[in-house]
């Protein structure tokens, strides 16, 4: 099979999407199914075939999602209706649109995270009598998870919230 010449190829657009919560890396296949589902549920099968969404890459807390040129708005709206991927609650926040993957890769910022919110402080806190461990920390933002076998709910706090405890 010979590749089509560039002038006959379909024009595509690529969306840079930030995956929230930070630190969660979804399975690309599962994310692809989630995106397809969101587009189909919101716009229907006929429109979904026109949008032609596809997850190209998942890296550094971001995903690059491809669509047909002219369908960026429809894809971005559908992405904002994504609330979970598998069993994990997520949000996909579109931050840039481009005609090439390379230019989007340049926009991906390296993630600086830690699990120690305050230097010299333990990574575990007691809030309202329950023990929480810090699972992600970036700038003022601190994510904690209640310690236990069953409860794995993530709570979204700030450094000041922890200092108040």
């Amino acid at each position: 099979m010979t590749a089509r010449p560039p002038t006959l190829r379909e024009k595509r657009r690529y969306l840079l999407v930030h995956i929230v919560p930070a630190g969660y890396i979804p399975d690309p296949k599962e994310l692809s199914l989630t995106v397809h589902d969101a587009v189909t549920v919101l716009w229907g099968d006929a429109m979904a075939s026109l949008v032609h969404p596809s997850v190209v890459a998942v890296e550094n807390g971001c995903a690059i999602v491809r669509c047909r040129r002219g369908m960026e708005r429809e894809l971005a709206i559908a992405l904002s209706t994504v609330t979970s991927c598998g069993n994990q609650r997520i949000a996909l926040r579109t931050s840039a649109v481009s005609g090439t993957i390379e230019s989007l890769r340049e926009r991906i910022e390296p993630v600086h995270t830690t699990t120690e919110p305050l230097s010299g402080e333990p990574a575990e806190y007691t809030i309202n009598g329950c023990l929480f461990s810090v699972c992600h920390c970036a700038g003022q933002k601190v994510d904690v998870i209640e310690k236990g076998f069953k409860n794995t709910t993530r709570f979204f706090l700030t450094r000041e919230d922890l200092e108040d405890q």
Partner: protein
Amino acid sequence: MMMMITDACVYPSPMGDSSVRRMALEARELGFDSLVAIDAGISEYAGVSVMSGVQIRHTSVQEILSRIKCQKGRDAVVMVEAGDSGFNRAILTMRGVHILCGVHKTDRYGFDHIAAKMAADHRIAIDISLAPVIHGRGVLRQRALDRYLDIARLYRKFEFPLVLSTHARSVLEMRSVREISALASLVGLDIMDIEQALGNAGRLCTPERAVRVIQ
């Protein structure tokens, strides 16, 4: 007056899984100047103004009147959950109510042209919650979109204030200004209407007054 882009309703901890400070931090990154947080304990964080909100739901008109009296002088945004047609008309004449929310849950006659006129006369805002559009699937979402299309039609005729909200219980449920604008365009609002709606919540607590001479 400078327009404050506001998310008209979020539920911080203990109703949700995020603290009000974290929601304010997130709101700033998402492009908001302020947010209305139900039972918020702070007024500002990270440059984002946090308006305290009070949501009154599933109760009688008398009960609502007494709860509004309690809120006098507290500068809280009072939101009342919509009910049937008679209830909504009673609410839309009350002083002290700022927002009528949950209109998408009512039937078509719950908010009709008479209620729309009353909302316009008393400057009570109608809340367009994007939660059913974001989280709903199938019939639930279609019904919400249908109700919002009807509200948008009435809005164009009567020009009552509209507000846009995410009703987020988590930072994961918050959406950026751009995303909210795109989602609101699904219900037939144009960019001018959306801008107006995003700025309305900020105006509710600080209504325009006559010019005063300060010496």
